[in-house]
């Protein structure tokens, strides 16, 4: 799978070598000498990509950059590369969601395999995100009242019950419910529940503003 590999390493020589090899394997490569450079030019995530990150880089350390990118909503998988892997740093990085943890010198075969995996994962997560974004867009078209009705329906409440809670008639709810199905482009209740689950409406209150 083609894509862009973002190489963050303060060692120019290593950057060049890796860039050369990855390009041979058909990837496009962007190189950064420091964490700051990467943060200043945040990668476009519309294309599949991954970050190849040295643990020891100027400004911020690898794990710190990982943390920052996560907060910025980046989905780019991070593959750590290090000259010397101490257990503490490795565990910390993996826990924080590192794609893999490689030790220099690393064979091209191993590196390419890991990069390819990372690309696929990014592709997958990108697809999921894309779907989710579409759903969220559809969700945003609902009026507040429709949203309330939507929430009630996916929680398994009957129309009468929803009508009572919202202080309106069962008939009005029925009309809203039809409108919701229409806007969300679903034909069954099961599909509606599935969407609600994917956008996280069923997991808790925090992601689902019940009242606008």
């Amino acid at each position, binding site marked *: 799978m083609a894509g862009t590999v973002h190489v963050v390493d303060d060692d120019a020589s290593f950057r060049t070598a890796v860039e*050369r090899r990855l390009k041979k394997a058909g990837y496009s490569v962007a190189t950064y000498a420091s964490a700051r450079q990467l943060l200043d030019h945040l990668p476009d995530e519309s294309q599949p990509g991954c970050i190849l990150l040295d643990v020891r880089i100027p400004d911020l350390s690898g794990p710190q950059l990982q943390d920052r990118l996560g907060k910025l909503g980046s989905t780019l998988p991070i593959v750590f590369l290090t000259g010397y892997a101490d257990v503490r740093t490795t565990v910390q990085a993996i826990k924080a969601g590192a794609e893999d943890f490689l030790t220099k010198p690393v064979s091209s075969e191993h590196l390419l395999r890991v990069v390819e995996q990372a690309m696929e994962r990014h592709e997958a997560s990108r697809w999921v995100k894309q779907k989710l974004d579409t759903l969220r867009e559809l969700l945003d078209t609902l009026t507040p009242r429709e949203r309330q009705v939507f929430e009630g329906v996916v929680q398994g409440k009957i129309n009468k019950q929803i009508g009572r809670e919202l202080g309106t008639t069962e008939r009005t709810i029925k009309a809203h419910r039809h409108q919701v199905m229409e806007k969300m482009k679903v034909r069954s209740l099961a599909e509606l529940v599935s969407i609600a689950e994917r956008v996280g409406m069923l997991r808790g209150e925090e992601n689902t503003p019940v009242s606008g």
Partner: protein
Amino acid sequence: MALRGLIVGLFALLAPTDLPAGEARSRSILVLDQSDMRGSFNHQIFAAFQAEVGSHSRSNFTVYAEDLDLERFSGEDYESTLQKMLSAKYRDKPVEVLVVIGECALRVVLRWRDELWPGIPVVFTMVDEADFRRLKPPPDVTGSIVGVKLADSIIAARAVVPDLASVYIVGDAWDRQTVFKNWREEVASAASDLHVVELMGGTLTELRQRVSELPERSAIIYSSMHFDGEGTSLRAGAALSRIAEKANRPIVVAAETLLSPGGVGGYVLLPSVIGAEAGRLVLRIIDGGKLVDIPPKAIEAVAPIFNWGQMERWGVRESDLPPGSEIRFRDATFWDEYRWQTLAVIAVILIQAALISILLHERRRRSDAEFEAHQRLSELAHVGRRATAGELSSSIAHELNQPLGAILTNAETAELILESPSPDLAELKDIVADIRRDDQRASEVIHRLRSFLRRTPFELRDVDLNDIMREVFDFLAAQAAASNVVLYFNAFPEALPIKGDAVQLQQVILNLVVNSIEAMSAMPYGRAVIGRTDLNGGTSAIVSISDFGPGIPSKGFNEIFDPFFTTKKQGMGIGLSIARTIIQAHKGQIWAENQAEGGAVFRLSLPLALH
């Protein structure tokens, strides 16, 4: 009142003439010399006599002296005139002791005595044994019998001329001789195996001619000469010097006063001994000694004395001289003149040499000890570096794996290119160049590590403190980055030349920086280590390493440089103690402080190498 004063003054004026009794109590000594006391020999006798008498505690004597001059003047008329003169001259001078010098004088005194000085004790000297026996002085006459033998002069002549065959005796005619006249009888016995020529009584002119033509293996023996045979009378010394002018052989003499006018030496009469002895005898008599207790006695007034200048002239060896000989007029050698000074200087030099050798020995021992100490320090420092290297292992691995990683990737890329049907040679070239560079980098890391870990002997070289600091800060950059610590180095703008062991100094600085990095591990932000070099006056350089950590606990301030003192969880506590040992070996100092704004600062001062 005035009248009385005048009378007293008159009495005082009249007093000396008015006291004949006082005059009678004064004591007199009369010295009668048969010759002329203006001659140096007789003068020395008189001088020594006077000195001896004058040294007496009751030296209130009047010493009168008369030259009878009996060597040059003789005859009944002369002698009776002399007697009359003395009788008249000393009529009112009661003489207590008569001193008589010479056989002729003794002879006339013995004749005049009953008339002129009845019962007055007589002390004679310069009378030889033969004359003494002939004159037979009465018991109230005492004195010193002084002999001078021809035999002694022959011994001296043999010493001066070892292969002596003949001697020439020169002087006035025998019948005019006084002191030496008895030699005449002695000639046959004293010089039986020698050819003896008597050149007596001739004119000085003839004699001068004669002594200039003497054969080899001969010597001249000078007796005494007062007449030149042409009507001129002269002193013995003057005659000798005129003879010596012409003589072609050494001249043996028999009086001390004849050494300087040209005598080579011999058994010589010593006038000072003769005069002093006469003085002693006079004092004994004056002190009440009975004459019976002081019989006439022969005294030893002769000593072998030689003239250095003449010895040189005639080639006389000192070893040939009679035992106990004294040499006069020798140019004092340096040794003779400065014996004590020379000994003192030699002693000082010897003591100094001993001190120097002791000091050199001490220095040697000291340098051995220093060498030993440096050896120990090198080993200790090595242990310290190994410990530090262990702590830095992650940093080292990182530094090494960085180029190795690049090399591997590049190599594999190259393989890939080579597999393609038309390899891109330009790119391959780049790759190979990169591989080469990374390989060098890796070997540099290894080299640096090895030189850091090498067991090197302590060696002082000219180094720049800035270079040493810079290398350490570069070396630790990776380690610092891994710990999220920023290293700053503010170098003094000029070189700071010191004499030091670069590896060990780097070890000290590295140790301080690593400590600082570790001290800040719990800090959330602002982790930095600042290194500085600076001049401290004109004689030393200062290095400071400061951090922003918690600082040094106050209770540990005094102990941080002690061995096995540590504040770290995993520390042996040897780093700073080794650092201090190293800095002390560089004649420097190391100390620690807490900064007012927080954090610790370690400083070390090292003496600048001045050119």
